[in-house]
């Protein structure tokens, strides 16, 4: 497995199709914080509840100047059908081909299983990786507080910097 990217350095870029086959790049979110949520598979029970809870709290997450982007190795058609069935309104990106390339760049591709591990990467509005959470066990989803804690840390640090400026 590739090493995980280091905090406080530019996050690895990506350009992947979403469920509508529209290309989404990290730089599209310039100025906003990005929650990059890698997960093993559409339709699986743990992913279903993890992303449903993200959807349920999405307005509060956006209140922290952030957008959520899901990434898995599923193809765009699977993403489209799953997002519709689960009422997910944030983009799900398809890391299908080259298979798992972006998961590899972030050091979370599970070679043995051919899927991504469950992981969260928090990228600030300047495109720098600030913190991450990587599952010890892909069957266990992150507590939703992880997303809020990481974003509040980014926002808190930013307002602190602004005060000093």
């Amino acid at each position, binding site marked *: 497995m590739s090493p995980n990217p280091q905090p406080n350095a530019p996050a690895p870029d990506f350009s992947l199709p979403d469920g509508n086959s529209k290309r989404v790049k990290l730089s599209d979110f310039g100025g906003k914080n990005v929650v990059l949520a890698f997960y093993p598979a559409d339709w699986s029970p743990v992913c279903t509840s993890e992303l449903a*809870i993200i959807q349920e709290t999405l307005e509060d997450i956006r209140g922290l100047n952030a957008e959520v982007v899901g990434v898995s190795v599923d193809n765009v058609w699977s993403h489209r059908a799953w997002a519709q069935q*689960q009422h997910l309104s944030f983009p799900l990106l398809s890391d299908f081909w080259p298979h798992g390339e972006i998961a590899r760049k972030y050091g979370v591709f599970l070679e043995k299983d051919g899927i991504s591990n469950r992981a969260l990467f928090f990228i600030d509005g300047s495109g720098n990786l600030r913190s991450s959470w990587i599952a010890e066990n892909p069957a266990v989803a992150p507590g939703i507080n992880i997303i809020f804690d*990481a974003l509040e840390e980014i926002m808190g640090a930013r307002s602190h910097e602004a005060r000093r400026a």
Partner: protein
Amino acid sequence: MLDDRIQRTEITDDDWCLGERNAPVTILEYGDFECPHCAAAAPALESVVDENPEAIRLIYRHFPITTIHPFATIAAEAAEAAGAQGKFWEMHNLLFANQPMFTPDNLRRLAKSIGLKVARFDKEMESHVHLPAVKEDFRRGVLDGVNGTPTIFINRVRYDGPREHDAILAVIAALAGERQV
């Protein structure tokens, strides 16, 4: 360091409690009445408390995931409305036994079946007087780091193991062992 294993919120007197309020072991559950995994876990959680009511208490908080469970919030409100008439746990059990079509008519039928004053129940449901309590539970669930439903904490530590009677008791027994050391 990002951590999601520890319950941050305090248990309060407003929380729904099964077992003795001052029991030394607290199981906190964040649940959704439309969630099949919560329904499956309910008998095990209830039985560990029923067998040890002085030692173990169960606290139930609402965590309705409405995007996939459209009736979860209204069902949580119904449980609160039953609680206002002293029958929270009766309604809690009935909801888990009667998933998932919690239309207003079905909820009224359940309310009637446990002897609630239906006029009061209807009034409270129509004006959503219990919605703030449901939302407050959800907010606390976000702080505590819910990672699915049910999310269970045993003495403030998240428990991701099997939601089965023996497995839960084994964790509690291990905690009791640590305390005696």
